[in-house]
């Protein structure tokens, strides 16, 4: 059945991810591994948007609001309690709780489409302005100074229950990669559950889902909260990778690139946006080391090219291509069999004629 084929795909991707986790520190430079933790955080953000937008049909332009809140919540909590395990949980909780409140008003107020995109983006930009204004000694939560424009320091990860043993950058990379793989497998599982399928159905047709007695507000809120929790987790690895969290996580450009990753990788897939994050981050990073072309200009061109030429995104287009080739191969072999039978019949009649 198709289900098991889907699941095999997930498994293959998860194994590839694990192989990458094991071999990357052997092959790549130390500095690249440190940067990668950051990019993994961004990839989890892309995955969360792939879930919320690609499967839930909710165009959340301000997904970075939850990402940034997660990062800030982690930094502040870890600074105060001096350990990272509780701080990670706190990051996920804060992002999810904020999404629950915001989502309640959005979905129960029946806000949708472009209005939802604008509202969520505005929320991210409000957080941007707010955090930028927190410079000065009076803006502190416990021991953590919010630091305004310069942001606040994000303590490194440590072994669970042992705040003294700080993880090495390689170990942080392992943890981040495993979190990404688990998050990916979780999302693959989620979209195949009853809940996930109802979310997809709502994306396809809200009225029909409602008439089938599903409370679409509740389902949308549910997937919105799950997406926000994932984004919050992404924020943790991002700020640990940079060792700092600044208001820039809430900026307009950060919100926009998250959307670009999903468009380029392909809506309706989970792996596409993850791969697109790595690829585009690599592209901008290598463009950043030269002065000939402006990185943002190239990113903009990539987006335009994709929207015009590959509107479905890379991964869905590859899947489509493979399907077309398979159909062609089936048709060709059928034709060949027919032709063979015809010639054989022809020979027989010819034999009879003699």
């Amino acid at each position: 059945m198709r289900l098991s084929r889907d699941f095999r795909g997930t498994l293959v991707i998860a194994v590839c991810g694990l192989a990458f986790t094991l071999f990357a520190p052997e092959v790549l430079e130390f500095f690249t591994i440190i940067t990668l933790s950051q990019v993994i955080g961004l990839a989890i953000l892309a995955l969360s948007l792939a879930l919320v937008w690609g499967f839930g049909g909710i165009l959340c332009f301000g997904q970075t609001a939850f990402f940034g809140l997660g990062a800030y919540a982690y930094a502040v909590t870890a600074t105060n309690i001096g350990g990272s395990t509780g701080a990670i949980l706190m990051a996920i909780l804060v992002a999810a709780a904020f999404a629950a409140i915001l989502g309640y008003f959005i979905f129960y107020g029946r806000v949708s489409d472009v209005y939802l995109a604008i509202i969520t983006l505005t929320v991210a930009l409000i957080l941007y302005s707010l955090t930028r204004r927190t410079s000065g000694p009076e803006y502190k939560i416990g021991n953590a100074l919010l630091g305004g424009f310069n942001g606040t320091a994000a303590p490194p990860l440590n072994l669970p229950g042992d705040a003294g043993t700080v993880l090495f950058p390689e170990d942080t990379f392992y943890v981040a990669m495993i979190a990404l793989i688990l998050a990916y497998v979780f999302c693959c599982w989620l979209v195949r559950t009853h809940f996930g399928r109802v979310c997809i159905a709502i994306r396809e047709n809200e009225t029909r889902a409602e008439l089938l007695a599903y409370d679409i507000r509740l389902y949308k809120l549910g997937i919105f909260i799950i997406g926000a929790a994932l984004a919050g987790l992404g924020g943790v690895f991002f700020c640990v990778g940079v060792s700092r969290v600044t208001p820039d996580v809430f900026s307009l450009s950060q919100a926009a690139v998250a959307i670009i990753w999903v468009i380029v990788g392909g809506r309706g897939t989970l792996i596409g946006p993850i791969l697109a994050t790595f690829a585009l981050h690599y592209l901008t990073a290598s463009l950043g080391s030269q002065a000939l072309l402006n990185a943002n200009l190239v990113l903009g061109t990539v987006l335009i090219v994709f929207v015009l030429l590959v509107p479905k995104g890379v991964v869905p287009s590859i899947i489509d291509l493979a399907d077309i080739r398979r159909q062609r191969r089936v048709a060709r072999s059928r034709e060949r069999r027919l032709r063979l039978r015809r010639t054989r019949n022809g020979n027989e009649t010819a034999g009879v004629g003699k």
Partner: protein
Amino acid sequence: MNRAEIVLETRNLSMHFGGVRAVDRVDFSLSENELRCLIGPNGAGKSTFFKCLTGQLRPTAGDVLIRDVDVTGREPHEIGALGVGIKTQVPNVFEGLTTEENIWISARRWHRSSRARTLTTETIERLQLGDVRSEPVGRLAHGQRQWVELGMVVAAEPWLVLLDEPAAGMTHEETVRTAELIREINRTATLIVVEHDMQFIRMISRRVTLFHEGGILMEDTMEAISADARARQVYLGHRA
């Protein structure tokens, strides 16, 4: 009519859009196991009336009662949750999902996973949709899409079924089969069918409600309505 048998009732139901009285003070009642057709010329208010019953519109005034529960202004999913199956005029299906997935979503709302799967298979067989089981519904022909939607209604095993133009745009053979299906559904459920197609109504109807200018003009058998001078004038006149 015995009070206990009434499963759906409207009292003084009105729906106004600005100055237009699309539905105006309608008292309507439906008894258990009935198969009722709503007919009327374009703009008579039958579709608006239907949308008030299904929660897609919130009536301006009056009440809708289902089994003596006041459901006026409830959300569509709350009305669906009472065990009411609804098919809208414009086909509402999950375009990107396959026939099987469409019907499964409906069955799974009420049943555990394994039962939902058998129910899905049964429904697909019952509607003869086996050939397009794994096709995305968006790629199906119009008549088949209508049946997928009917399949979704049937798979939920509703006790009250509200259908808005179930035979719209179908070929003659398709219409005949739809009529058979509706009579079959009627064995276990009470139905309201809004329809334009007179031939189709003759195939299925027992009792017909004729809408005119937002109100009920008369309620009788199709034969009686066809014979009635007023009904002829408002509706059948330009056809007969």
